[in-house]
Structure formats: C-alpha cells, structure tokens
C-alpha cells in the first residue's frame, strides 16, 4: 500500500488546503477527510501516476463541500484562534489571499505549477487542459496575481 499515505502527500494536501484558503484550524480535519476518501477510492488511482494531481482533485472537492456549509461560508483566513497554531507571515497571507481572489482556473495553476512544483505538463494533465492553454493560464495567473497583490498593498497603505 500506499505512499498515498506518506508524509510528503500529507504535507502536499495540508499546504494545498491552506493555499486554497482553508481555515488553518480545520486544515488537519479536512486533510483527514481527503485521505479517507483517497483510501476508499484507492482502486481508482493509477499507481503509475503522480499522486499529487489526484489528491488535489479530492482536496478541492472536500474543501468545496466544507464551504457549502453555512457556518463555514464566511470563514476568514486569519481568525485569532489560528495564530497560536500557525506561524504567521504577512507576505504569505497577502499571497494566499491574492491567490484566493483569482478565478479558480487561475488559482489552480498557481498552486500546482508555481507553488507545488509540478511541471507545466503535469499540471496540464492534472487539470485536463492542453499544454498551450495551461501556459496561457499561467501567464494570466501571474499577471493577475501581481495586480491583485499590488492592489491589496495599496489598500493596506491607505488604510
């Protein structure tokens, strides 16, 4: 069995959850759900392939369902309860918020390709899009991310 259940994959899922804007205090519970579903569906996983894209899909679905719950819909990233468990960094917060503000098709590319270290080809395969489309999305994602970061910095400076 399964390096699906290895530390590297757990770290990947935890980081992906945080990058997708999951509240840090719930990230571990959500990660557990991801791996329980992965275990249940392990027969669908092609062992010859990279685990990260497969886990990424499950992670997004788990987080989507989590957010459908009314009580989780308006979670913010930085409630006080999280400060004790997660090291805070304003730049990282800024980046994650800016990523969360991107359209999903662009934020996925940033998370998989730029932050998680998948190649363009791997990311394109994971998202089911042609390589050219992925490259175009990556360019747009970086451009829009930079704009969003600058906008948020300006807002913060004038606040």
């Amino acid at each position, binding site marked *: *069995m*399964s*390096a*699906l*259940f*290895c*530390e590297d*994959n*757990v770290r990947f899922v*935890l*980081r992906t959850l945080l*990058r997708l804007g999951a509240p*840090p205090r719930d*990230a*571990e*519970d959500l*990660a*557990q*759900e991801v791996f*329980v*579903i992965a275990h*249940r*569906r*392990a027969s669908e*996983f*092609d*062992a*010859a*392939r*990279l*685990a990260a894209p*497969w886990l*990424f899909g*499950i992670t997004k*679905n788990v987080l*989507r*369902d*989590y957010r*459908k*719950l009314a009580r989780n819909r308006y979670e913010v990233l930085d409630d006080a*309860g999280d400060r004790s468990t997660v090291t805070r960094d304003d*730049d*990282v917060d*800024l*980046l994650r918020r800016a990523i969360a503000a991107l359209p999903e098709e662009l934020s996925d590319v940033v998370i998989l*390709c730029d*932050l*998680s*270290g998948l*190649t363009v*080809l*791997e990311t394109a*395969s*994971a*998202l*089911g899009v042609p390589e050219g489309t992925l490259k175009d999305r990556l*360019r747009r994602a*970086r451009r829009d991310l*930079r704009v969003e*970061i600058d906008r948020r910095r300006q807002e913060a400076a004038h606040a």
Partner: protein
Amino acid sequence: MRDDDQLDPELAALYAKERAMPLPDGATARVLAGVLGGVTASAAAVTASTAATSATSAASSGATGLSLGKVIAIAVASAIGGGTVAVVGYRELASPPAVQQPAPTPDREPHPDASSAIDANVEIDAPAEPAPRAIDRPRPAPPPDAAEDSPADDTREPLLIDRARAALRRGLIDEALATLMRHERIHPSGALAEERDVLIIEAYVAQKTTTLARRRIERYRREHPAGFLRARVDRAEAALAP
C-alpha cells in the same frame, strides 16, 4: 518546465517565502494517525492492532530511525494489508521528470448536494481514532442490544461515529449528540471511544452548552490523559466563553 523566465522577481520571492512556511508541529503525524484510526477501525481491526503495536514500539524505541509519521504510514499500510496502491510519492519541488506523466485523473466527480463529500463517508469509516487506542483497549464486547436495535451493520462503531461527524458538520447538533450517545451506550469502551468523547465535547461547544462541555472536557482528560486528540479538546475548550 517551470516558466521561471517569465516570473516576476518579487512574485518569485513571495512564492519562495510561501513554500518555506512551516506547517504546524506534528500536523502530518496527526493527520496520518487520524487516517490510521479511521481506516483500521473497519478494514482490519486485528491487523491494525498488530501493525500499530509494531509502529508504536518502533517509534518509542527509536531503533528504526523513522519519524512517527512514517511509522504510522507503515502501520496504515500493514493494517490495510494493501497492495492495491503502489508507492508513488509526491515530489515536492522535485526535479523535472524524465518522462511526462500520463494524464492523471483528478477527482472531478460532481457533488449532488451540499453534504456530498461528508455524507459519502458514511459508508466508510471515520478518520478519527489514533492507533494506540486499538492497542490499549480490548476489542469491545458485542453490544448486548445491537441486535435488538437494528441490523448489526447499523450499529458499527465507524458508522455511528461517521454519522455523528457528518451531522455535526451540517450543524445538526442534536442528531449528532443522539448518535454519539448511542455509540456510548453500545460501545462504551470501543476502539473509537476517544473520538466519540471529543465529538461530544465539540457538539456541546457548538451548542454552547458550556456546563456539559466543561464536564465532558474534565472527563476526557481524566480518561484519556495521553489522548492523541488532546489538541482538539484544547481548541474546544478555548472556544468556550470564559
């Protein structure tokens, strides 16, 4: 290809900072332990005990040099007795692959309703119980009234716990508590007793039933002095009004 040539230097610096951001201490081990608990509870309880015993003794002795998380991962593997999934790890920021991976199949199933992912777990097992409990506690005796209550499957520990978790996540606190109390009645010393006790605390906290929550917290600390889920109890306590 990483397209680094087109990456804005400031953005690259932010990326590097984000990648270097540490996860909370012990987070991976806790997740693995939780998964181990849920999986072993139904898949291979006896095997799980053996595997987890090995894992625990190995971890405590330190003889293997493996981290706790890795040991637990091995225990998961042993417990499930798998072979269905080969070893394919995630290459975090790894070097480019020599060969392009064939198209993987991300999980893109539609979710028909708001509770889909969580409800989907009802037929499987709750990711909850840490391994050592399966070692420390004897297997629970068959519930005396299980056969009277309903078909046997309906009273399985993982099913009850998972049902309670799903109810709690949907905000159906009364339903969650009723299910948890049923678990407590049928499986008072079950392998998932610690998870049940923590869920009861979380349900009372969510319900703002402060007195009962505090009473349950005290009881949890008395009955599970070295519980794996202490952090969740601490968080629940912190969420209580002063």
